[in-house]
């Protein structure tokens, strides 16, 4: 039996899907969240196995992960409810820190099975064959970026603000060689593969301090 908490509008497609799940013998819907605090409490609850997010709230999910400092692959599983499981949805889900995706247009039996498999760890997004050929960094948008010191942090901020290496060099009054060496260090220490990954990860790092 999977204890499910849903984050959705009750009358939206995901709300209707959640309502339908109430009738499934393997799923117990324990609540529906109306705001971020309720979702954080549900995620921190030991009695919830999975938190289901409406596709429209995918960004909320990653902000919650960042703000509440919830590590990836922790319990409960965070699951995105999408119209269908397409490659863009899978990529977005991995970037936003979801553990899995279910299709709300699938047969209820199949969706419930997928949900159960995600909670049991039998269905992992990173194992999706669709992603095998992409050089993608999982959890890109929910990374807590690490940096060695204040200058590295400034370099990271300026990369996130869209400045070129030359512009960063001019802004911080450090050589272009030092700028590039520091960016290389940031990419390596954060497991990122390209400068754009660093810029996106930094620019999307939105933390709401009052979440806990």
């Amino acid at each position, binding site marked *: 039996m999977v204890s499910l908490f849903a984050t959705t509008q009750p009358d939206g497609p995901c709300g209707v899907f959640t309502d339908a799940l109430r009738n499934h013998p393997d799923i117990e819907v324990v609540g529906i969240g109306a705001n971020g605090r309720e979702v954080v409490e549900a995620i921190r609850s030991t009695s919830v196995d999975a938190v289901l997010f409406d596709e429209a709230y995918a960004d909320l999910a990653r902000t919650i992960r960042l703000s509440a400092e919830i590590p990836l692959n922790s319990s409960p599983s965070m699951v995105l409810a999408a119209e269908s499981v397409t490659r863009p949805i899978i990529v977005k889900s991995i970037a936003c820190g979801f553990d899995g995706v279910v299709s709300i247009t699938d047969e209820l039996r199949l969706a419930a099975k997928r949900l159960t498999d995600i909670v049991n760890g039998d269905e992992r997004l990173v194992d999706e064959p669709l992603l095998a050929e992409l050089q993608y960094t999982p959890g890109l948008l929910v990374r807590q970026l690490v940096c060695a010191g204040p200058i590295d942090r400034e370099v990271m901020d300026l990369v996130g603000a869209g400045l070129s290496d030359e512009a960063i060099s001019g802004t911080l009054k450090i050589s272009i060689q*030092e700028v*590039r*060496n520091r960016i*290389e260090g940031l990419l390596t220490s954060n497991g990122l593969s*390209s400068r754009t990954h660093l810029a996106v990860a930094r620019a999307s790092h939105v933390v709401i301090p009052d979440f806990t």
Partner: protein
Amino acid sequence: MSSYRISRDAQFSRLNSCPHQVKEEEARLLPEGLPTSTLVDDAEFTEVTDHGEVYTLFRIVRFTHEFDHHREGWTHLANVVRVRNQAIGVAHLLINDRVIHEAKVVISSEQL
């Protein structure tokens, strides 16, 4: 035998281009024991490839040549090692004020 008259503009252009043409590319071998600190403040530099996306850290082992008037603008040639995922190679460098502004590395051997 045919003869050609060269226009005044063309003559002027040729005269102007002469100083550049006589500056031939020259590579001077540098002494084997030359410390890297003679030419740069920091022997570690990052090569940026793939349209500015991929950053790879290298360390200069030894400067081998100094260029005059290199057609691509490089000032030095050096033996380098890749700091992560070890490999060795040769780097064309553009050095200005003891800072490496641009680099192009050719990897010659890498660790399997």
